[in-house]
């Protein structure tokens, strides 16, 4: 089990920090603790927010002191070892056509690849959803293969990119769920609704989900967009069981 640091973030949140780098094993611990805390329904815990390398636990200090919460977290950590849990695997369509992937060519060139090779590498990657954040339903997925994992964010963000845009920066891929300013390099676009407002507000992905991408043509992308707009685009994840690394 990794060493954790528990730090106060004001009087209503504790950060449980598993490390200071992006690592799938650390993320597995973060998510296992989140799940454990949610299941334990600890009185006074309001909600938990898994992030790349830490878990933020929001609590009400008048129902549960920081010290008792810390003790409870340490206790729950002990029980985590070897617990199996269910995750969901999504296979999601992405169009990598340069028409809607403005940075595909430049990133491929900087990586010393052809655009086709870049796409091949991206779709061969089994992604892990580290966290959601920044915008409703916005997923941060990793890890990119090393040859693609070396481009920092753009110095000047774009003022607006369309919903579904798939960006890469450093070791991660993100998917912008709504039209938004964006600073990552755009290598594709997915027709999948990651954040839906009607008939009710829903988000597609959860931290811990597994994701692979399947390439579709511009034409298929457009017809899938039409299905998504009509609400008939059916996506079903496959349930998988995984253990927590010791």
């Amino acid at each position, binding site marked *: 089990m990794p060493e954790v640091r528990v730090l*106060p973030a*004001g*009087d209503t949140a504790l950060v449980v*920090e598993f490390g200071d780098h992006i690592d799938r094993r650390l993320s597995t611990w973060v998510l296992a603790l989140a799940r454990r805390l949610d299941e334990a329904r600890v009185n006074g815990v309001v909600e938990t927010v898994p*992030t790349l390398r830490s878990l*933020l636990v929001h609590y009400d200090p008048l129902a549960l002191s920081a010290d008792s919460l810390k003790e409870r977290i340490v206790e729950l950590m002990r029980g985590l070892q070897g617990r199996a849990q269910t995750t969901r695997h999504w296979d999601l369509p992405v169009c990598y056509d340069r028409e809607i992937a403005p940075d595909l060519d430049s990133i491929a060139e900087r990586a010393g690849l052809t655009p086709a090779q870049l796409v091949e590498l991206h779709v061969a990657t089994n992604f892990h959803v580290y966290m959601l954040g920044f*915008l409703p339903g916005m997923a941060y997925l990793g890890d990119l293969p090393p040859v693609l994992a070396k481009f920092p964010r753009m110095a000047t963000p774009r003022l607006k990119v369309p919903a579904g845009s798939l960006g890469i920066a450093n070791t991660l891929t993100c998917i912008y769920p709504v039209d938004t300013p964006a600073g990552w390099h755009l290598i594709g676009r997915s027709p999948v609704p990651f954040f839906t407002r009607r008939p009710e507000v829903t988000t597609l992905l959860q931290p811990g989900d597994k994701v692979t991408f399947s390439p579709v043509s511009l034409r298929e992308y457009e017809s899938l967009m039409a299905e998504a707009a009509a609400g008939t685009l059916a996506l079903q994840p496959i349930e998988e069981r995984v253990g927590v690394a010791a």
Partner: protein
Amino acid sequence: MTAVLRVLAPGLLTTVQDLGRPGYQSSGIPVGGALDPISLRAANALVGNAPNTGALEVAYFGPTLAVEDGEARLSFVGADAQIEILPDETATSGRRIATMRSVHLHRGEVVRIGSLTRGAVLYIAVEGGFAIAPVLGSVSTYLRGAIGGWQGRALATGDCLPLRRAEPSDRDDCEIVGLDLSPPARYRAIVGPQNDYFSAAAIETFFASDYVVSTGADRMGMRLKGPPLPHVRGFNIISDGIAPGSVQVPGNEQPIVLLADRQTVGGYPKIATVISADLPAISRMPIGAKIRFAPVSLDEAEAARRRLVAHIEELPDKIVPIRQSIGELTPRLFDCNLIGGVVDASAGAAELAELQ
């Protein structure tokens, strides 16, 4: 048929807010809700609503609203504001009323709210609340995600907000006496969680200096301007969660206090976190206000929160009925220049007693 509030002018940024939407941060959906939940609670208490009832949050400059298809009781709590009640849409002048009170408005009457002073936000609660369907358990408007409130956006001219009631109850119009919304000398904060990204000198600077609320402050965050807070280990951290009141310091070395609509995760080091008891007070401060912080321990923060909760529980005791005649006469005293400056309704009552 229930009454509606028709928006004749929307004000600068008027949104429906309640106490927020907790429970969805792991999906990237912020908690949101009123910037100043104390004023929201007081506004709701004045009209007999439950504390979490959605009300209008007014920022800097208020809306003009007409009561149609019925009658309504509204209350106003927060920053000082010029509030005028006009007999109808075409009238150019009417009677002025103070904030910190409720008022029964009749069909066709118009309430016009001007610039706010001594605060950035004012809450307008309506007896019974708005007939707006909650989204994920809350009617709070989250502008960036375009969800909640009135069509996921700020009010616009022509909007007709349906109320739950057709007319007010026969309860009295009331005022709230002794609600202290004045700014504290210092806003208390707990150091960290990323204080190790700053030198001891930078942390000292943060707590020893005056900062000013700068333009670019919004419901997400309050940008402050003041002595720079240099980082010792760069300003990019691996993103982690953001607590209410987090003070993050990006590359320009100027702090940002993260407020109600704060993003759920972020990648800048956080030098300190404003304690929950002082968050409503700092959130209501307008652009140009001077801000100074004081370091406190977790124990002190918890004690302060306990006092705040006790203060909230006492809100109903601070509410007293306004005698109708006084409520109507006080603005006339303003008009006759019998009373100068800003006077609350109780002072008006004292003046009246002397006149009698």
